[in-house]
């Protein structure tokens, strides 16, 4: 394995051990192989040809939530997320990517039609096999143990996605583009709808990005850079043509892709580089848009003294951590629910989802997640709001497992709710 770029990145690690203090996974594993320092040593060994067992190296690199806490704590500013993702891709190039991921990332994710079909199929399958459980956030299905899904619960899939529910011609053009994201389009269309309706309150004309490709993050973190690049290129081309002033993201992970990971996939000499920079510069998070456009100042005063401090905010690692947008979300919340909002316990702890991590080691993912929601609930939080699709999927599952009355919502739903009181 050879990768000079990657080698340059890992060379910045001084093996000091700071990453051990913040790693979400370290308390679970209590082993050096789980932390950034260990993984970087493994990548170096593979790059130097000292470790030829790439399956084992890939296994170690996959055992990471990519929460980025180590990167933010690192005194040498080692780009751990980029290193892990690049390492996974280099190894994947040698040992291959599982067929189901190839099909999902290469065929389904870049195409809007492919995703519609996939949701319809999944929705039908759900009704056949899974057991229904009502939760504070709506109906969930619990899969039987026999499916190898270990008691996981998933939200009831809707018959129609958010984009599909738009009337022909509705939100077709506008100065501001809403990038809904796969999950808020297909799994939680209510969030897509709430984002759209509340953004309209800005008085700006809002277009919904209908033919979006997946942001590409699931492929990227799985080491499938080719599919991730295809998603990125599709999105850049289509957004370049749309010429929106702003592109707004209700999901922090999608936004991370556009703000940061794009430039790993589309480097300096890439023909789309300039367009990618221009698109990226116009991208922003939902909360920032709501603040800038004065939507918050136009919200009616929240009802006094109702459910004081029962609504918390969960910091998505990518959005609050990597992109530093935690304060904006809180300001929006204070505007929307007033004294209903209070800092919840363990707000900045990772939810334990980690995308593909949740699939490969559900038990660990669930332990981290259950700990997160139990801590919040123990501190008096009854509703956890956040702004990332992965976190919402995980937190809903964790609430269904531990305390089904706990509600998990997107901040846009709270803003839309406040607007409806007008």
């Amino acid at each position, binding site marked *: 394995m050879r990768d000079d770029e990657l080698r340059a990145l890992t060379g910045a690690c001084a093996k000091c051990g700071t990453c051990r*203090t913040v790693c979400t996974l370290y308390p679970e594993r209590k082993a050096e192989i789980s932390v950034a320092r260990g993984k970087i040593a493994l990548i170096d060994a593979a790059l130097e040809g000292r470790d030829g067992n790439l399956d084992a190296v890939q296994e170690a690199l996959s055992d990471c939530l990519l929460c980025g806490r180590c990167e933010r704590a690192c*005194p040498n500013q080692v780009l751990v997320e980029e290193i892990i993702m690049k390492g996974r891709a280099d190894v994947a190039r040698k040992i291959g990517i599982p067929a189901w991921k190839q099909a999902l990332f290469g065929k389904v994710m870049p195409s809007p039609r492919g995703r519609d079909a996939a949701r319809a199929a999944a929705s039908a399958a759900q009704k056949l096999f899974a057991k229904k459980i009502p939760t504070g956030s709506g109906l969930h299905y619990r899969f039987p143990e026999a499916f190898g899904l270990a008691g996981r619960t998933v939200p009831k899939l809707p018959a129609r996605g958010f984009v599909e529910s738009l009337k022909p011609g509705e939100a077709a053009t506008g100065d501001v583009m809403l990038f809904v994201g796969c999950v808020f389009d297909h799994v939680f269309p209510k969030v897509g709808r709430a984002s759209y309706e509340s953004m309209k309150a800005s008085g700006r004309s809002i277009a919904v990005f209908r033919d979006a490709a997946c942001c590409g993050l699931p492929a990227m973190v799985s080491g499938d850079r080719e599919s991730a690049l295809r998603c990125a290129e599709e999105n850049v081309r289509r957004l370049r043509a749309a010429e929106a002033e702003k592109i707004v993201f209700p999901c922090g992970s999608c936004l991370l892709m556009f703000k940061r990971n794009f430039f790993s996939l589309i480097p300096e000499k890439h023909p789309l580089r300039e367009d990618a920079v221009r698109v990226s510069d116009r991208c922003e998070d939902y909360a920032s848009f709501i603040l800038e456009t004065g939507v918050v100042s136009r919200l009616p005063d929240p009802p006094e003294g109702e459910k004081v401090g029962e609504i918390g905010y969960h910091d998505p690692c990518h959005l609050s951590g990597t992109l530093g947008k935690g304060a904006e979300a809180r300001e929006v919340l204070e505007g929307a629910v007033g004294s209903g909002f209070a800092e919840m316990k363990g707000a900045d702890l990772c939810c334990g989802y980690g995308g593909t991590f949740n699939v490969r080691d559900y038990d660990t993912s669930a332990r981290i997640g259950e700990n997160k929601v139990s801590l919040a609930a123990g501190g008096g939080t009854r509703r956890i709001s956040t702004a990332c699709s992965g976190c919402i999927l995980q937190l809903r599952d964790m609430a269904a497992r531990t305390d089904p009355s706990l509600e998990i919502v997107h901040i846009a739903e709270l803003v839309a709710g406040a607007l409806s009181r007008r």
Partner: protein
Amino acid sequence: MNEKVISALREIYGERLKTSLEDRICYSYDATGKEFLPDAVAYPLNAEEVRRTVLLANEHRFPVVPRGAGSGFSGGSLPVRGGVVLSTERMDRILSIDTENLVAVLEPGVVTETLKEEVKKKGLFYPPDPASLKFCTIGGNLAECAGGMCAVKYGVTRDYVLGLEAVLGTGELVRTGVSTVKGVVGYDLTRMLVGSEGTLGIITRATLRLVPLPEFAATLLAFFPTNEMGAKAVAGIVEERITPCAMELMDRTAVDCVRQSADLSLPDETGCALLIEVDGQEATVAREADRVEGACRRFGALEVRRAADAAGRDKLWALRRSISPAVRKVNPVKINEDIVVPRSRLAEMFAFLSGLAERKSLKIVNFGHAGDGNIHVNVMISGKDEDERRRAEEAVEEVFRKTVELGGTISGEHGIGIAKAPYMEMEVGPLGVSVMKRLKSCFDPNGILNPGKIFLEEAAVRR
């Protein structure tokens, strides 16, 4: 190590024994950046497992290397001769915090900050504060006798150890020391083990002394035109009969590293910065801070900033904390030494260092715990230039000679490990080394524990 040994180890550890290359690579390094691959890694949960491992090692003659968080700067936890790394990270329980006798009993894998936080909840204080306190372990701190910023007032790890439980190189489990403040029954085996770098015994339990938590603190940051003035101010503060809990000096080279940091805005003529913290009762703290400020001004401070609230103090500390990351930008490879000279010789040492850097055309950045005379001399090299590397090694040797000449010591808090083994005799002399070796053979006759450390002829010297 052959299959028979591995399966015997597996009988002790089961799944907690790791032999895959990937797991071994992850225990091949520490903060020195050097790598030596162990044959196996085990995670013991109790002293009995450690004891059985050492007995097995005596039978089959393989090295046993204890390791805390692998954050050391001298290579103490590196398995230079292979063998089994015993990672104590899962022996991480605090067994008791006795608020009546001010004593804590704990396992070696407890992270230093965790102990500090837990005792703080009870209004108590465990003072040692190595820079790595957020991740380093008490076991590692004991084995290397870690120091830190507050050593000037509170001393180092050794000053807080009352008793230990350790597995000797023979596989015998020994309990040393006391759980009381006083105790003079026989030789002080406790202090023998502290700082022995895992070569005499593997610490499996520690009884530590605690003190009441100081209630208030004030931080001052003073800027001086020259190192000499800064160093004189240090002496001046001590002459005021004040013992600050931290007195951190950054010389011109260190100040230059962080000058660009936007939010710090140093006075233009700054050539040296001195950070002082005093702690104790509220009224005393305020009075002492006044006198420190006065002393700084008397010795020519350009400006003195002062804060007593947490946020303000944090802001002043930012300058000191920003040095380590900034130093990396000077050059990627850091040769990090931790010499100590008597406080009164600090100015002389700084002058020597600046001359040395010029003579050898090297980038040397100096900062450290001036209150106790401990200076971190960081020779920053590109790592690619052989001649530069040779000059750096010569410079390090000159620094050590000068240190000893000034009545100092070549390692204040990092330990000898493999990094400083070639220079030890320079300080302790041939007889000193010989006595140490005789002691070593008494604790570990078969040379099982952490071989290749401290002593030169065994050391694998590799920069």
